[in-house]
């Protein structure tokens, strides 16, 4: 997911220059983290349009307030915290509009996203449709609190300790939520795997 992650010394230097208002350094930092942050937001919010909007907000806020960052070496985790907060705020605003209970445990976020027919987007034509659909179903079935740690740990490959730095919860809380998210994901992906297994004899029959 991360391309050419810089050495810590280089990152500190880049962030230091960005804090002084150097636009080239900001552009370099954007180039390093735009894709993973964009995908993180996309996996949480579910639509490309919202993901682009929130990615823009995230980087705008980050570069506007980078001077306040005391530890330049923590830029990546700080950036992800901003991204996560943007997603949470957007979802809260959507929920207020629909006037539905905020119980994360019972209601998946997809119910609050308007006009879901837009999700049949051109990007899906380039992807494995069935896999993407099941991944999305699995993430939709998770409450947001489980979804973000699951995406960070399983999709974005952060260590559990790094996840705690982003979400601001204890290691035990993070591990528990990832465990619960995995249970949900496993049930849904099992249907995909079973279907793939069932398809194989039929395909062999057609090809022979």
């Amino acid at each position: 997911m991360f391309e050419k992650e810089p050495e810590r010394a280089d990152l500190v230097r880049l962030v230091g220059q960005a804090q002084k208002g150097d636009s080239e350094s900001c552009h370099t930092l954007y180039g390093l983290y735009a894709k993973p942050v964009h995908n993180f937001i996309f996996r949480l919010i579910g639509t490309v349009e919202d993901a682009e909007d929130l990615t823009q907000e995230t980087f705008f806020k980050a570069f506007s307030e980078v001077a306040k960052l005391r530890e330049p070496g923590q830029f990546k985790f700080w950036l992800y915290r901003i991204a996560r907060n943007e997603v949470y705020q957007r979802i809260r605003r959507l929920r207020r509009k629909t006037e539905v209970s905020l119980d994360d445990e019972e209601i998946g976020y997809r119910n609050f996203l308007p006009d879901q027919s837009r999700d049949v987007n051109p990007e899906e034509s380039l992807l494995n449709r069935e896999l993407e659909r099941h991944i999305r179903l699995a993430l939709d079935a998770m409450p947001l609190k489980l979804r973000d740690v699951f995406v960070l740990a399983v999709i974005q490959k952060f260590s559990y300790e790094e996840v705690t730095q982003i979400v601001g919860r204890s290691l035990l809380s993070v591990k528990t939520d990832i465990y619960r998210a995995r249970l949900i994901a496993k049930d849904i992906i099992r249907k995909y795997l079973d279907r793939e297994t069932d398809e194989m004899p039929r395909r062999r029959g057609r090809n022979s």
Partner: protein
Amino acid sequence: MKCQDAEEEILNLADHSRLSPELTAHLAQCAPCSALLAESEEVDLLFGTAPVLEPNPFLWTRIESRLAREKPPGARRWGFALPASTWLAAAALVLLSVLIVSFQSEIPLNPDLALAEYAGLQSTDGGNPFLIAQARGASGINPFLEAMMPRNVNPFRFQREP
């Protein structure tokens, strides 16, 4: 190790290649837990290879433009710190404006009083500044060229001597 503990450890694993000795021993004799581990590895593999989207290539342009345009509350304007010379020039302009206003304030604002003072005439109803000049005995005088004519006085507004 019990299956319940094995399941918990399997689902808590961040790295499926790092199994505890107890779990390894349990898996050697428990087919369901071995299947669960395999399934968990496959789930993580599938999610780990989830399609990756490329951000819109124009996103940086939008961010950069917005940073140049807006200044969020409490934030320093990005890349637009004004040099000291600009601030000095602005201060000089303000000072000059103050001086001009104070200079203007020395000119009487009441046009009637100003003109009366200039022409030595009393205010009357109506009047033509050229006639007044003639009355003074000056011919061909253009009151607008008179050096003493205050700039803020409209000569057509002054009152004619009865």
